[in-house]
């Protein structure tokens, strides 16, 4: 990541940041108790990454 002409994030860094931020927002909005929020955030983050990486690999045979 560089802070010169803008953030230069790799694909994986972008995916990670996006997944973390959205998971936190979803966790706080949809659950009330802290432990439930934490569980929801972890589960949502795991699914974001699993599906994101899964779709990436599913597209691999068609990339060239």
């Amino acid at each position, binding site marked *: 990541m560089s802070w010169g002409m*803008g953030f230069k994030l790799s694909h994986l860094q972008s995916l990670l940041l*996006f997944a973390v931020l959205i998971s936190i927002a979803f966790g706080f909005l949809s659950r009330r108790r802290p432990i439930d929020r934490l569980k929801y955030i972890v589960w949502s983050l795991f699914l974001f990454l699993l599906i994101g990486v899964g779709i990436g690999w599913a597209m691999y045979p068609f990339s060239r």
Partner: protein
Amino acid sequence: MADETAASAAAPQDSRREGIALAVGVAGWIVPGLGHALQKMWGRAAATFLTVGLLVILGTGMRGNVFSSSGNDAFDALGFLADLGTGTFYLVARSLESNGADVSHARGDYGTRFLATAGVLNLLSALHAYEAARGRKA
């Protein structure tokens, strides 16, 4: 008879509550997290403010496209509506994009998605605040 009296007394109260809920929803749209803060839901207010703010900063930093009202097609109009969902943060995004958008690289395209997601997330949060103010969610 008693039921009718109770119903007529409850109607103005419901109307007032609906008006307050609407104001809370609009406040939540204009300033991300304000709708929840007005209801003393501090965790949700902070989470909304920070996540929407970070998505906007990252999106503009990655040189994503901040759509304006003078778009050429329906996709530009939809992008503008999504970006407008961030409320006042839309103006922040406009002021931060000093170098303009660059969607010729993947990161610029990701930045555009970050900005649109920030707007839609803030609209979702404002809707949640509105429903909470109506007493339907907590």
